[in-house]
């Protein structure tokens, strides 16, 4: 089987268009995961036991169930009780909630790495818990874990093909559909592989820059 450039040029625009869907779902899901994950991590770090336990159970439950099942439930089971969410919103919600639990672990590591002395200094200066988090602890906890969060961004990119379950066609599904139609998988799959590489490298670079920018000011 040879590699046909003409054919590649033919499928490229189709896949490029579908890649916008990939990007939308990934970035939307990641934004949600980053914010919700931070919230979960902070709630879990509080001394108030019921909240801590509830958050831990939630995280454990979400992480132990495949994303596929969560997507399915959100899109096909929730309408049974009258809750109808559009496909893309479901996709972003499921990706976001699922990965927020992973992000929470990452943030937790960041929080753990803030020396106890920083908390104690904040207490000795009489900061409220809220100020301690927002002004003292998070500005130190978040920048070092930005690269680890970036890894999940890349993982999420690669996870998006699963959204076909709920009728969202991103670039990988598009490539496989084209392949099914023509029985030439090599070119479309190659295009998608290259796009994945491109996205991953771009976001890795972006994340590194962002992380450097966050810390750079006080290295």
């Amino acid at each position, binding site marked *: 089987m040879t590699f046909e450039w003409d054919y590649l040029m033919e499928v490229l625009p189709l896949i490029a268009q579908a890649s916008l869907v990939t990007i939308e779902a990934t970035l939307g899901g990641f934004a949600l995961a980053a914010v919700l994950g931070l919230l979960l991590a902070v709630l879990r770090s509080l001394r108030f036991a019921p909240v801590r336990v509830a958050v831990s159970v939630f995280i454990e439950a979400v992480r132990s169930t495949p994303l596929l099942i969560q997507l399915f439930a959100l899109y096909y089971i929730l309408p049974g009780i009258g809750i109808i969410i559009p496909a893309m919103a479901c996709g972003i919600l499921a990706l976001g909630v699922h990965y927020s639990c992973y992000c929470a672990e990452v943030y937790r590591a960041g929080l753990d790495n803030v020396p106890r002395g920083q908390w*104690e*200094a904040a*207490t*000795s*200066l*009489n*900061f*409220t818990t809220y100020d301690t988090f927002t002004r003292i602890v998070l500005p130190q906890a978040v920048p070092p874990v930005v690269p680890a969060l970036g890894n999940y961004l890349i993982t999420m990119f690669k996870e998006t093909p699963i959204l076909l379950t709920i009728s969202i066609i991103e670039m990988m599904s598009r490539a496989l559909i084209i392949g099914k139609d023509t029985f030439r998988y090599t070119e479309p799959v190659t295009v998608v592989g290259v796009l994945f590489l491109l996205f991953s490298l771009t976001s890795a670079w972006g994340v590194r820059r962002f992380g450097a920018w966050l810390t750079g000011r*006080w290295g």
Partner: protein
Amino acid sequence: MEPIIKFDKVTKRYGDLTVLDRLDLDVAPNEKVSIIGPSGSGKTTVLRLLMTLEKIDGGVIHVDNEPMTHMPSPGGTLVAANEAYLRRVRGKIGMVFQHFNLFPHMTALGNCAEAPIRVLGLSKDEATGRAAELLEMVGLADKINHYPSQLSGGQQQRVAIARSLAMRPKIMLFDEVTSALDPEVIGEVLEVIRSLATEHNLTMLMVTHQIGFAREFSDRICFFSDGRIAEQGAPCEILDNPRNERTQQFLRAVLHAT
């Protein structure tokens, strides 16, 4: 005069380990007290309890005639203190740590202005103005925009002192504030503390191993051993004529090592 700090049979345990054992300790307003003693004897714990960084397991601590960690209920009995009450008591006390614990993401000025803005509710201008004054007082007028990582240990510790003072405490706690410093810069930090002691009406409680400085600085020295005060009194009494055997042994080891 009423003591400003009063430990009344205070006990502190970590698991099975009793770190403070029914400790009594009174400090008068404006008094300068040094705490010396072997490692693990509970010196740091005394300061951490005052700063409410740890909970006590028995006894009462009064600060400024108010019980801390317990608060008077409407009926007159003492109940466990809530966060709001603790914050009010805590406002009277400032603490300087062995490892400075400066906020690495803020400049010297930011370190000193942040708490006054957030906690005391000062305007940004006023807080910054006062922070700059305090930094000048500790001899760092030219470093106010430096980040901690750009400062030497001695400079960082002086920022930490200014940061505590910015909260206008009545009581200052110092926990081995020079033991993480290069020998050549220890002097500059002690100098700042010395001038604070003479120029301000502050009650000061200092854990230190600088025997020479303790002698010159303090009104009283407490020698701690195994979670109790083994011996206390005027510096010359304790340092030159220790009666307790453990004190003698400790001073011999420390003075011998120089």
